[in-house]
């Protein structure tokens, strides 16, 4: 069996908490394991602050890893092995969440992209301008924007420049962090269609971090749901969204805003104080907000339960969750 393109084992990322809390740590990622095959798209969704961006950055060696192991193409990336990391960086790219800060503010977007091409060194210098133009066209940016610096672009234009730069190295793996959040639906559709095409044509593998569940449903083969540094549920996208097996996933699906102007905002889907990565609650991290929590949830973190392609970290049985969440995603 060939090894997966990306293999992550029990990854932990803690940040030192600044200020007066020196001894405390922000437990951003707490033991995440996952695998990604070539050409596969994994959606990564979850609560704001649950560690999605941290996980994405750590996979590419952009944030120091506290513990655990990342493998790419059968080579170990984490640790002291520089060769593995260099191999990863030549073949993987990140599209950052904040489009304005991801690009050099003093460079025009054409220069930023040209620089990536030059570093990679596979495009002859004479062909760089044409290649830059082609990349900008691919993400729907008009040629007259090429000479602009990021601050003279709109939010969505900046975001597309970031996507063009990531695609410039012709990566085999892209970690896309909220890469269409600032785009109007038509351009968003164009970018998603482009990603679907690249996946089919070049076997591009992707970790797609997003909060727009309708897009995740369209683009991703599998989805992993994060809550407070852990993956609480993972499985084929359709199955997870149509019959969630973790109460947090169920709450997410129920809170998807609807286009129907007569439908009001959902009532508070997650009551109570959100728990903090500075002081994780004992037991299951979700129990303080879980309507279905049992006494044992306060004591023991639920182990990941495997059932075919689906993985759930919850002690409840699937039908206990689906019966309490009658609303489906259908409009």
């Amino acid at each position: 069996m060939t090894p997966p393109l990306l293999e992550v084992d029990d990854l932990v990322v803690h940040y030192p908490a600044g200020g007066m809390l020196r001894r405390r740590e922000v437990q951003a990622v707490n033991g995440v394991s996952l695998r990604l095959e070539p050409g596969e798209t994994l959606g990564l969704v979850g609560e704001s602050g649950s560690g999605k961006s941290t996980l994405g950055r750590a996979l590419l060696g952009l944030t120091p890893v506290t513990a655990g192991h990342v493998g790419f193409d059968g080579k170990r990336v984490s640790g002291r092995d520089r060769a593995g990391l260099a191999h990863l960086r030549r073949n993987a790219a990140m599209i950052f969440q904040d489009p304005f800060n991801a690009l050099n503010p003093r460079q025009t977007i054409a220069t930023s992209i040209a620089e990536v091409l030059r570093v990679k060194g596979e495009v002859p210098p004479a062909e760089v301008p044409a290649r830059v133009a082609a990349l900008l066209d691919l993400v729907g940016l008009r040629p007259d924007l090429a000479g602009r610096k990021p601050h003279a672009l709109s939010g969505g234009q900046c975001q597309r420049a970031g996507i063009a730069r990531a695609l410039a190295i012709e990566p085999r793996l892209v970690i896309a962090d909220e890469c269409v959040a600032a785009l109007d639906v038509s351009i968003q559709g164009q970018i998603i269609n482009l990603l679907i095409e690249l996946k089919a044509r070049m076997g591009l593998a992707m970790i797609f971090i997003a909060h727009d569940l309708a897009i995740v449903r369209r683009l991703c083969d599998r989805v992993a749901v994060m809550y407070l540094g852990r993956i609480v549920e993972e499985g084929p996208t359709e199955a997870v969204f149509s019959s969630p097996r973790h109460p947090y996933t169920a709450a997410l699906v129920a809170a998807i805003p609807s286009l129907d102007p007569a439908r009001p905002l959902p009532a508070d889907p997650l009551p109570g104080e959100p728990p903090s990565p500075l002081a994780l609650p004992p037991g299951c991290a979700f129990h303080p907000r879980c309507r279905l929590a049992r006494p044992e949830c306060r004591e023991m973190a639920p182990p990941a339960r495997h059932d075919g392609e689906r993985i759930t970290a919850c002690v409840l049985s699937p039908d206990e969750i689906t019966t309490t969440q009658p609303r489906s995603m259908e409009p």
Partner: protein
Amino acid sequence: MSAPLLSVRDLRVSAGPLDLVDGISFDLGQGEILGLVGESGSGKTMACRALMRLLPSRQVAVTGGRILLGDDDLAALPEADMRRLRGHALGMVFQNPASHLDPVMRIGDQIAEGLRLHRGLDRKAAWAAAIDLLAQVGIPDPARRARNYPHEFSGGMRQRAMIAVALSCDPGILIADEPTTALDVTVQAQILRLLLALREARGLAIVLISHDLGVIAQTCDRIAVMYAGRIVEQGAKTDILRRPLHPYTQGLIRCQPGEDGGGPGLPLPTIAGQPPSAGEMPAGCRFHPRCPRASETCRREMPAPHALEGRIVACHHPLTGEVP
């Protein structure tokens, strides 16, 4: 109807010879929520930053029109008076919070500053109220998190901190530019509920920019749709979402992911073609090169905004009498 709180008339924002916002007009009533939607680059952010007179660089300036707030025309007000209004009369949640939070100041201090200035709280009370605001925007462990610097927050936490900073000044009008793009749907619902509660409690008026028509549908009273620097259609939320009159509005609604009935792996619907850029606007209606209904008239004459079926539309061939 009582006089609107804010009246914008023929507002024009230009960068040198380029008109980024090309004569837009709208009203905002007390306690009203106006949704501003439209293509990326159509001028939504520039229009809103013009209201605050916080344009991003010296090249970009308000070059025409009026922004009437009470007896003041904000387009003509001296900068010193404008400074007095910013924050308290008009608050803004910027699209890119990372660039509008002070990187070397603790989040709690940034929120407490507004509370001291605009609500007259002392240091201690302001800090306590800042922690309360952080809790209201759903930041866990707010007492500890108030001591963090912006880079220690996640993208969505920074976005919520930005909202708390804007609310700290107790604004009468809140301009929120994509305030929930980095938030998961449950936290997003919490933020939207907070805004609705502030509207109920003290008549907060809001201009809400969003690409997510679901968010717009759940919060706004009226919607204005922008295309290439102009408002092409505006009216009551239900009218616009249920029966759009402008073909561009219809295109936007049809492109909402999840609304087209398509399945996994299938391409999403898009509006064919690309939006024009400010330097090369097509003659006539700016949407005509992409419009399925375009006629000879559309290629020649710019459609003027006119009243139709209870709203204002700028189209020669609106979708009247059609069931979408």
